[in-house]
């Protein structure tokens, strides 16, 4: 049975990931600047008035669940993007999804538009993500190849980045500039159930769209011509993937700001565990993304400093060394 061993190891690793997630959730619930009696807080229940219960149910739980949700959305979005473009360096930001959401949010922060109902910022950010994807789709044209989509995405992304730079350049006050910079660094601080409930339907809808396109992604791994011969022709499936990414990643950016590298690194990490299957990679990346972001947020919560450590900075610190490792391992491979 020596040949079945790697498969078992991979499955075991995936099971361990699945097991690590609830453990990380418990770690997130017990860690924070205030020491709480978790058992007593659980006993008091959702409507408990005690400070331990409020901290657990109103602060730590929604934040941890939001980290899981956003991590899953980013991981899944990255896997779908890499599968569709057949490019291991692709991530949701490549098609301007993150930039579109971020720019919409920045414009809102820039002009200091009044907070009407508490939903304006995230809703506009989601709209921004969809608009960016629509622009990419229109620029690439119907039935565009992966390379044309990438080109259109790079162009739209560059344009949106330029607009963001312009907004920063002409920020009306240092407060507006600070707001924009903090938004671009991403954060889960001070988020509650309302943000979670806002993002949840979009991320779920995005997940449904992406999972429904899993066979298209599998067929696409054989090449565009093979996918077409297998019946995945036309613009329906690419549009499905793009809308799924826009919904999931747009909602994630809308409530937490831009959090980089998760969508890029996570699919790389778990791809060997699913034997390069783009379909299975979707849920495996969602799982690993959720775990990675939750662990990053535990680090953020326990970081002692005069200012809050931004989660985008943490994921960047995780992502950059990963690329160093990727380059070093590629050089070793060439050497041998």
């Amino acid at each position, binding site marked *: 049975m020596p040949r079945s061993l790697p498969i078992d190891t991979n499955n075991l690793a995936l099971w361990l990931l699945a097991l690590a997630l609830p453990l990380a959730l418990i770690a997130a619930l017990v860690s924070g*600047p205030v020491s709480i009696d978790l058992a007593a807080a659980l006993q008091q229940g959702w409507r408990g008035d005690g400070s331990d219960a409020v901290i657990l149910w109103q602060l730590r739980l929604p934040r941890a669940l939001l980290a899981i949700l956003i991590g899953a959305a980013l991981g899944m979005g990255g896997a779908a993007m890499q599968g569709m473009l057949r490019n291991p360096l692709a991530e949701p930001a490549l098609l301007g999804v993150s930039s579109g959401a971020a720019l919409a949010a920045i414009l809102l922060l820039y002009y200091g*538009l009044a907070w009407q109902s*508490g939903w304006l910022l995230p809703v506009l950010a989601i709209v921004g993500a969809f608009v960016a994807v629509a622009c990419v789709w229109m620029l690439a044209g119907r039935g565009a190849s992966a390379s044309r989509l990438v080109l259109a995405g790079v162009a739209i992304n560059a344009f949106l980045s330029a607009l963001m730079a312009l907004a920063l350049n002409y920020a009306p*006050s240092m407060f507006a500039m600070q707001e924009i910079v903090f938004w671009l660094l991403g954060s889960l601080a001070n988020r*509650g159930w309302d943000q979670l409930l806002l993002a949840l339907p979009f991320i779920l809808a995005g997940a449904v769209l992406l999972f429904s396109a899993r066979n298209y992604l599998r067929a696409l791994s054989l090449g565009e011509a093979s996918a077409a011969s297998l019946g995945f022709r036309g613009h329906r499936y690419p549009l499905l993937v793009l809308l799924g990414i826009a919904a999931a990643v747009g909602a994630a950016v809308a409530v937490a700001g831009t959090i980089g590298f998760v969508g890029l690194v996570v699919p790389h990490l778990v791809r060997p565990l699913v034997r390069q299957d783009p379909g299975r990679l979707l849920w495996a990346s969602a799982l690993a993304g959720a775990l990675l972001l939750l662990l990053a947020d535990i680090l953020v919560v326990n970081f002692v400093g005069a200012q809050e450590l931004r989660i985008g900075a943490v994921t960047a610190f995780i992502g950059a060394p990963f690329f160093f490792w990727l380059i070093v391992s590629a050089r070793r491979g060439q050497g041998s």
Partner: protein
Amino acid sequence: MAGQFGFTCRLRICWPRHVPVDGLRRRLSAQNDKLSMILLLRPFFFLLLLVVAPTISAESRVASLNLCIDQVLLNWVAPQRIASVTWLSGDEHYRKAPLPEHVVLNRGRAEELLRLHPDLVLVGQYGAQRAAKRLRELGLRVVDIPDAYSLAQLVQQLDALQQALGDNSALAAQRRRLQQLLAESAVPGGASALILSANNITYGSGMLESQLLERAGFENLAARDGAGQLRRVSLEEVVAAQPDLLVLYGGDDEFALAHLAERHPVIRRYVDSGRVFTLPAELGFCPVLVAADVLQQLKEKRESLASKSSDRHQ
């Protein structure tokens, strides 16, 4: 207010600076024949001064190179005396008083003020120091006004402003009011308070905000925990500390990420029970304007909390 400044100028014109008032009186008493004439003409002197006063006041023009001093001028000084304020005061975020049309907005450059020929340039402790130095070198009267980070420094700042601007009823009244409030014995801390400012920052014992709380009879929980200056405070810490009063800072109705914590549902219970006090944003950049009001309001808030608490116990 304007009348008071005019009167100051009138006195200066009547009694030139190089002739002390006492010396003049001695000379007048020695010249008895002239004294009766002067006494007779005194009402006409006053009438004449009243006529020329606006012109003289308008000539005594003041320019500012500091945001807080801008606000002092705009709020408490006759508009015709203000030559220039900083560009930041063009933004209504910082300014509550109207901005007179003739007032020039400057960006802290010497050449901007030079062409306005102000009689007096007021500069803060920090910022625009190069421009101040250059203006001094060019012969303009530039006066440094110290910043205020404590109650004692606030009084010093008011003194410095009064000295530079001359008699000013508004400044004098503010100083009197502040000193009166400070003279009242601080009530021993029966209630606790915690400041939750932008970006989850709270204020420790060394800060003016903390001093105001303590003077109003609150125990600042951040100071009790050993915070001397600014410190990060999470919503968890706010909930765990259970302050009697949650003090928010600035944050208008407009949405800002920096004030996201204040919109969290766990804070709503403080809002619903009336246990929230919002410090005006001006306290952050120009405490001299609002410190007395804030202290008064905080005292009233503590009394209302105490009465609510005693009602509950009964």
